[in-house]
């Protein structure tokens, strides 16, 4: 997952991830890429389009 520098770590992506693979830290996101099934729901909901697969 390409997380753009303007990501504000709001966590909306984590809330909709059906596999609970996104860890929202205070100033960064951590994706478990190995388990990701590429559903891209996280990309869809980002309020500032900061995620790109």
């Amino acid at each position, binding site marked *: 997952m390409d997380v753009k520098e303007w990501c*504000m770590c*709001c*966590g*909306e*992506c*984590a*809330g*909709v*991830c*059906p596999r*609970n693979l*996104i*860890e*929202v*830290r*205070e100033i960064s996101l951590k994706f478990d890429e190995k388990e990701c099934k590429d559903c891209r*729901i996280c990309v*869809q*909901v*980002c*309020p*500032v*389009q900061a995620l790109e697969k």
Partner: protein
Amino acid sequence: MIETDVLVIGAGPAGSSAAKYATLGGAKVILMDKKSEIGTPKRCAEGVSKEGLEKLGIEPSGRWVTKEATGVRMVSPNGTAVNLTEDKVKLPEAGYVLERKVFDKHMAMDAARAGAKIMVKTLATGLRREDGQVLVSAESMGEEFEIKSKIIIAADGPESRVGRWAGLKTSLKPKNMESCAQFEMSGVNMEEPDCIEFHFGSVAPGGYAWMFPKGDDIANVGLGVLTTLTDKSAYQHLLDFVANNPSTKNAQPVELNIGGDPVGGLLKKLVADNVLVTGDAAGMVNPLTGGGIISGMTGGLLAGKLAAQAVAEGDFSHKRLKVYEKQCEEEIGESFQKYLKAKSYLLSLSDEELDSIATAFKDINFESVDTKEMIKKLVKISPKALLKLGKLF
């Protein structure tokens, strides 16, 4: 290893409320938050009802109330406004516009004064069960450690992972998560500076836009959209709204806030062995307005009290904690049902229908009008809108 009776994860209003009431109930409590500053950044329009605060026994303080809002102004897509004021009609949502950065800290301070230990900049990274208790792995300032607790209260917001670690289905579908963006702006020239303002229709597909006054020329100007109904991001919709609204023509942003708002209603399962879920993580957000401070704090209060009782009894099982779901349904969930219906109705209306409804009601005296008269007006102005309403009930 750190040991405690109750570990509350997330120090928003719901978590702090849970920590406070668990402590007051006699439990040893830790309240942890991943952020270095509780309440920052805000992800909220900052509105709270007077009635709700009163019910929770919280005295409004000049430290965190920025403005008292005495009415609601609802604006249709073509700019027709319906104004409702507190002196003419009962408005449960009218109240105060807060400074959340201060409010949240004060709620956490209340928990601390009650006796809770607070850990900031501490992130929960996992959860496992051992000997009838829960071990939460955590990280703080480069240090990794475990916290052993009899009960966990997950108040970790809409992105909640804790509930899912415990086996609860707290993840949301995009259709139940409003994607929100907001500017705090100065130079805002609101038509009714004492009213909170809502804008409906295609300006915010699946949601609405808002202006919440914070005194002088300052306001939170934001919106929430369902990303299932639009190709644009919430931020792009916000830029359009601000550019096209006369009230924000000369306004400048001093802060940008974004975040998700879970608007699908209260989750059905809020309890597992040793675990209670509360606040946004539990869907304790009014599905129509997106407001979740009071309902979250109510849920936190219920969770905290129950956790303390369960600790005192030495029973942290799902069976013992299950009463929490019933309490939350009665206190929070039941009222959400009508809001879910109202939201469905609102989302079913086209811009033209919203305009015709606003035109029908803009000059109405809500103090003296009865339901029959309102229906008559709706039949006359927009029979289609009335038909949609009828299908819901």
